């Protein structure tokens, strides 16, 4: 389209090798030099497939079947094997998602850059090329650093090496595939600065692939939203985030929690995305779309220009013209649970909890070392309230949850539950105490025994804690499944047939079956897509309201924490650095570390859809939360 485009992609399609099943199809976009295009979508939408196809690479079992990828007038997809080898890394380079696995473990990091210079016979002084790339990725150019092996680098450093690798042959286009996923928020923020500097200083076009709309919002100029293997909406990032024209983009933005403002109801997207071989003939999003009409099922909508000037912004939807303003999510009303919380007695009191893990003995003569994960944590939680524990990896937040659940024996300190001291391990606790404390884990795929049916999984705590007849149990299982918005008919199915979100709902139903007073949620949404996360968060909120359930909500994600908690504890390296009511913590953080964390968050911007600022005027929520949440600590 544009003559300035460094990278032009037209009608790109990738399919399952030797079959007509398309994984992605009809993908077209342009990226100019010194700009970045964000490719965003949920897992399974085909964004990584597109990223690799830009280098003419199809993962094993897949092949790039159609289309053109043009850089400097050359169609990369038309090149032969040798031509591709010469192009990859030299003309278009790639930054992988998981550098700890993508760097060769047995080779020093600088050697992994040097072999590229050699293989591509890049003109110029190899040492200078190496230094330029190394410094471009803001790594220290010292011989000590250059000689390190990947395992001797931190996660952030590994990713910088991967970026240096992408720079070293001075390519025209850099494809970054989830380059900050899995990094702590502060490390991520620093890395995003590196990427921002690159864009300013180097003459490259960047394709930035991510599932994280907050990051995309802040690092790219143009965005392409993918769903079901196609780009459903693409255009300038500001316009799309302020006023998305595709129902999917809207629903995605409605699902995003924010750290900087209070949001209204987070709304997930019902259903789940379909596998490439089960996609409908029409719009891939139609089965989950609230605005669906018959035509959506039957016919694939074409890419239509919207907005001014024309040609900049495209939407693939039959109904983009008549988006339903009334369907916007509700603003939030003061929650009844929060009201009762203030007067409630303390349910859980933890004082000076110290916990650690024994390390492995390294050799004869060296004694076992204890790595302290939690160093003197004290906190309290009243019945029906939600206390969030935030921290980066290694902060001790999961250890705290495991100690409370009776899965890990603390070294010292006291836990009191309903005023009574709590035994360290679950099996030494009285049955009624065990029943009243339940836990839900991070990874839904491993939370459910794959060899049991959903019904048996939910039934087990009933059998253990209550004396019910068989028919009563069955009725209760059905009731519990309905409470987590699953069909009771699901009881007979095995976990493998469920989506991640559904599995997490079953895990919640299993915890609820015990009728707990305290629910420990250990990173329960971090393995889920944002749309699914929203619906789980809303479910938890609803359960608190209905059952006056107290919650210890462990998370690394400040935005998620803001959306659900009453009070927040910030953990760093096993120590509590700040403990405050939600509103105070987010609006007036006291500890420098909390401020650093908050500054590192990449939120949507003020004024972005669904315009929470307009929907939540006057900060009435804030007043409410300050009176309720800020019990003096």
């Amino acid at each position, binding site marked *: 389209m544009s003559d300035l485009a460094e990278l032009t992609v037209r009608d790109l399609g990738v399919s399952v090798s030797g079959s007509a099943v398309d994984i992605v199809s009809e993908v077209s976009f342009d990226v100019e030099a010194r700009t970045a295009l964000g490719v965003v979508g949920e897992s399974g939408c085909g964004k990584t497939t597109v990223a690799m196809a830009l280098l003419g690479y199809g993962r094993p079992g897949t092949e790039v079947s159609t289309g053109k990828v043009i850089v400097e007038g050359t169609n990369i997809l038309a090149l032969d094997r040798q031509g591709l*080898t010469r192009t990859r890394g030299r003309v278009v380079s790639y930054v992988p998602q998981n550098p700890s696995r993508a760097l060769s473990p047995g080779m020093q990091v600088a050697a992994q850059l040097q072999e*590229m210079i050699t293989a591509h016979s890049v003109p110029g002084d190899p040492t200078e090329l190496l230094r330029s790339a190394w410094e471009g990725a803001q790594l220290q150019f010292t011989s000590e650093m250059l000689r390190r092996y990947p395992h001797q680098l931190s996660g952030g450093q590994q990713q910088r090496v991967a970026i240096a690798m992408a720079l070293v042959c001075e390519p025209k286009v850099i494809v970054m595939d989830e380059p900050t996923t899995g990094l702590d928020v502060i490390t991520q923020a620093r890395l995003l600065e590196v990427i921002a500097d690159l864009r300013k200083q180097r003459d490259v076009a960047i394709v930035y692939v991510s599932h994280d709309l907050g990051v995309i919002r802040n690092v790219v100029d143009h965005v392409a939203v993918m769903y079901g293997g196609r780009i459903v909406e693409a255009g300038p990032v500001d316009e799309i985030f302020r006023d998305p024209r595709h129902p999917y983009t809207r629903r995605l933005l409605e699902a995003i929690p924010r750290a900087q403002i209070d949001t209204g109801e987070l709304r997930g997207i019902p259903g789940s995305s379909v596998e490439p071989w089960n996609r409908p003939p029409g719009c891939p999003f139609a089965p989950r779309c609230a605005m669906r009409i018959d035509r959506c099922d039957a016919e694939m909508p074409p890419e239509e220009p919207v907005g001014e000037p024309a040609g900049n912004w495209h939407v693939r939807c039959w109904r983009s013209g008549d988006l339903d303003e009334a369907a916007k999510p509700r603003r939030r009303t003061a929650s009844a649970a929060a009201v009762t919380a203030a007067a409630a007695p303390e349910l859980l009191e933890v004082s000076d909890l110290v916990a650690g893990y024994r390390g492995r003995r390294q050799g004869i003569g060296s004694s076992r070392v204890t790595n302290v994960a939690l160093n003197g944590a004290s906190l309290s939680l009243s019945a029906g309230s939600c206390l969030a524990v935030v921290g980066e990896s290694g902060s001790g937040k999961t250890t705290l949850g495991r100690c409370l659940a009776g899965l890990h024996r603390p070294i010292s300190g006291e836990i009191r539950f309903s005023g009574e001291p709590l035994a360290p391990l679950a099996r030494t606790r009285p049955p009624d105490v065990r029943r009243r404390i339940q836990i839900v884990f991070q990874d839904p795929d491993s939370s459910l025994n794959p060899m049991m049916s959903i019904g048996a999984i939910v039934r087990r705590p009933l059998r253990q804690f209550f004396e019910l007849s068989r028919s009563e149990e069955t009725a209760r299982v059905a009731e519990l499944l309905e409470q987590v918005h699953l069909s009771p008919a699901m009881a007979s199915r095995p976990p493998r047939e469920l989506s991640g979100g559904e599995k997490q709902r079953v895990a919640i139903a299993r915890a609820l079956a015990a009728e707990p007073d305290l629910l420990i949620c250990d990173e329960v949404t971090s393995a889920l897509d944002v749309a699914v996360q929203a619906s789980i968060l809303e479910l938890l909120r609803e359960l608190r309201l209905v059952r006056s359930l107290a919650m210890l909500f462990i998370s690394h994600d400040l935005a998620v924490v803001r959306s659900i908690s009453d009070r927040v504890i910030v953990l760093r390296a096993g120590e509590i650095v700040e403990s405050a009511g939600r509103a105070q913590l987010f609006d007036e953080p006291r500890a420098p570390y909390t401020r650093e964390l908050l500054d590192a968050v990449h939120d949507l911007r003020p004024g972005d859809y669904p315009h929470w600022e307009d929907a939540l005027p006057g900060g009435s929520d804030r007043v409410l939360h300050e009176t309720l949440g800020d019990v003096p600590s």
Partner: protein
Amino acid sequence: MLRIVGTRLVVGLVTLLAASALIFITLDFLPGDAATAYLGREGAADPAAVKQLQEEYGLDRPLVVRYGDWVSGAVQLDFGHSFANDLPVSTLIGPRLRRTAILLALALAIMFPVALLVGTVSALRRGSAVDGGLQVFTLVLASLPSFVVGIGLILMFSFVWPLFPAVSLTLAPAALVLPVTVLVLGWMPFTARMVRTGVVNAMDSDYVQMARLKGLPEPRIVQGHILPNSLVPAIQAFALTAASMPAGIVIVEYLFGFQGIGVFLIDSVRSRDTATVEAVTLILVAIYIVANLISDIATIMLTPRLRTEALG
């Protein structure tokens, strides 16, 4: 690094010591004790003769004392007296051990490169007819008892097509061909399959995908990224093969009448010659432990992560 290697060495020694105790205690159960073997049934019926013999060789002392004596003797390569042969065990074992060592060394020296080659070729041609054929071939070979393979080879190459002797009484090269071949065929399949797994894992790794996306030419990827990173599984296969080495030696030596320690072990078991059984089992267990030690140390040397941790 020295400390880790040192730790491994000590663990190996402790295992060897514990194994020696187990061997000694087990054989102490031998009904009618060693005197029977020496004196024969009639002789053993005479209490005076038995008593005299026991006193002569110190067999009437407590188990712990005798074990202590045996271990301190074994350290000086004195394994006691063979009653069946009426000679010191070490005299009997010496030449036999040398012959077995030659057989073992030859078999390993041939087996390892062959297994590396077969495994690597199989992996690099994954899914092809070559791979499929090699996979089935190694599987079938691994399933066959070595004496069946040996008998097949003897039938083919000693009788149908008389190239090599069916009985290997000497160390002449021709006499060694068949025993070595049987050992190689017995050990190679497992190692080759492990090598294949290692190479396939490396080929499927993210770093090899990354190497492709970096635009490295294919030969460079194989040499620089696939092979170095799949060497460790191959080394570990060697350690696992070590578990089957002593058994392989025993059967093959028996089949070919090769006068090594394997055949000697079977003869000693038949004649209930305690001192010899003790010595030979200890040597065979030691072979296993040493092979494991070598593979452990090689793994540490070849893995930068382990190597640097060991240094730091």
